[in-house]
């Protein structure tokens, strides 16, 4: 793992800081003496705040609690090992071109944090702003894209419509023949969008949170949420009882399970979302191509593999496998768009379990139990939001009031009817 970010600030010598000098120093000992990136502490009996879920969002929340709100007596409890859930199962796409103001502001907040993140965390998250194309295959698609591009620009988000000829230049492997099964009439382009290394995001936040004093406790499954008079007092885990007056739950794929422990019902259904990776090939695609109409999205990783994402499986499941007909539909769409990809072998396939809200927007919210907060329901698009999600959720927990950007995403919207309907509007695929 290379993580070369910046030289140490003048005058300070921090042996744990990653830099070109640290790399050179460790080269002398054949890279066998790198310090561990984070501790593995035993859980203490109590913390100020317990975060349930050691994915990117949970670790980011803990990091911002410590760094921005001075709350350092924090534990992140992870059922397995950090980053092995959806944080390691997504297709690593980052963008902020959402239709509605509430979403646009939240995801743009996240994108701006992404742009500074490697420096902030002293960890190379390999954020590559290679641009994200959303294809239009018919006149209606074009009008929808124009509507979204206009909405984005009014919100100060870079977004533009590009012609078929421009698309062809950006992605030469794409079949832009007017007689193609899915003709390309144009696309929207967000140049600041792109991809990042998902594992690095988890490791970067884990290392930075740990350095700020956060205890990351792995192999520690929460089995109950303790409350007294509808006020949270702690959690029961497979490693004992842990007291806390504030508990933040960030467990993509299991939000309903944790909510049931606190007798809360959520408007969430959990579905598998599948992804596939091809054999590695030489550079063929240096941008991200997404298509709503045929529901496929593809980019090429730094290793040369094509990373292909699908739509969700239709039925609810916690099985992390997914069903073959979805793969078949995804691959047939991919091959129709990129005929040359039909020659490739697919190396791996997997599913993550995504918690989908009726309006395809997340829930970042206080709950009927005082001191208990939920950050969930990111559906198919949580990866891109990781920094922003953690940032606003930390604020929500620390101040016991929603961050202004999180206010529209409170649980109450399902009672008031003020939904943030991003189904389709934000380009379906993530």
């Amino acid at each position, binding site marked *: 793992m290379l993580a070369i970010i910046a030289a140490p600030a003048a005058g300070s010598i921090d042996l744990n800081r990653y830099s070109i000098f640290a790399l050179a120093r460790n080269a002398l000992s054949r890279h066998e003496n790198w310090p561990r990136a984070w501790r593995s502490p035993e859980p203490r009996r109590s913390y100020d705040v317990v975060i349930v879920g050691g994915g990117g969002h949970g670790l980011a929340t803990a990091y911002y609690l410590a760094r921005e709100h001075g709350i350092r007596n924090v534990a992140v409890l992870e059922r397995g090992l950090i980053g092995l859930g959806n944080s390691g199962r997504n297709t690593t796409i980052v963008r902020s071109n959402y239709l509605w103001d509430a979403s646009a502001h939240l995801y743009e907040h996240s994108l701006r944090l992404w742009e500074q993140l490697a420096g902030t965390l002293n960890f190379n998250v390999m954020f590559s702003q290679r641009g994200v194309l959303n294809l239009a295959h018919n006149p209606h698609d074009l009008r929808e894209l124009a509507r979204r591009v206009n909405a984005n620009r009014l919100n100060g988000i870079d977004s533009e419509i590009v012609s078929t000829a421009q698309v062809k230049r950006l992605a030469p492997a794409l079949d832009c023949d007017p007689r193609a099964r899915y003709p390309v009439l144009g696309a929207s382009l967000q140049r600041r969008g792109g991809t990042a290394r998902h594992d690095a995001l988890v490791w970067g936040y884990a290392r930075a949170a740990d350095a700020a004093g956060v205890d990351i406790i792995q192999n520690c499954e929460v089995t109950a949420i303790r409350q007294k008079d509808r006020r949270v007092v702690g959690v029961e885990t497979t490693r004992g009882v842990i007291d806390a007056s504030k508990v933040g739950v960030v467990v993509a794929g299991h939000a309903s399970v944790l909510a049931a422990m606190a007798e809360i019902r959520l408007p969430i*259904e959990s579905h598998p979302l599948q992804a596939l990776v091809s054999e590695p090939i030489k550079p063929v695609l240096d941008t991200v191509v997404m298509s709503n109409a045929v529901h496929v999205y593809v980019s090429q990783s730094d290793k040369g593999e094509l990373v292909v994402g699908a739509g969700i499986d239709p039925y609810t499941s916690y099985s992390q496998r997914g069903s073959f007909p979805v793969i078949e539909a995804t691959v047939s769409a991919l091959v129709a768009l990129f005929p040359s990809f039909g020659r490739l072998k697919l190396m791996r396939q997997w599913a993550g379990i995504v918690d989908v809200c009726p309006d395809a927007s997340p829930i970042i919210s206080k709950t009927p139990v005082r001191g208990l907060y939920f950050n969930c329901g990111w559906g198919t698009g949580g990866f891109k939001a990781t920094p922003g999600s953690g940032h606003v959720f930390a604020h929500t927990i620390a101040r016991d009031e929603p961050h202004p950007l999180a206010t529209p995403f409170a649980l109450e919207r399902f009672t008031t009817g003020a939904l943030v309907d991003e189904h389709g509007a934000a380009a379906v695929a993530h």
Partner: protein
Amino acid sequence: MLRIACPWCGARDETEFGYGGEAHVALPADAAQLSDAAWAEYLFMRSNPKGRHRERWVHTHGCRRWFNVVRDTTTERIFAVYLAGSPPAQLPDEPA
């Protein structure tokens, strides 16, 4: 690939079926009188269990009829298929 036993047509591949979500979410009789919270509960809140789930399916590319299924959402095993409109199926190993 699920194999689902339609009560009328027999076992078919899942691609013939449409999914209808949680079963036994009944429209409240006095819908016009409901509070916003009760309406939200009916419209949006779902049990979403990790384990056995009673759910609706429709045989879209077959007889086009709706029916209910008990499926385990962790193993995808289907335990029972029963008619729409009947009470929740009780499995032998479940408390009544």
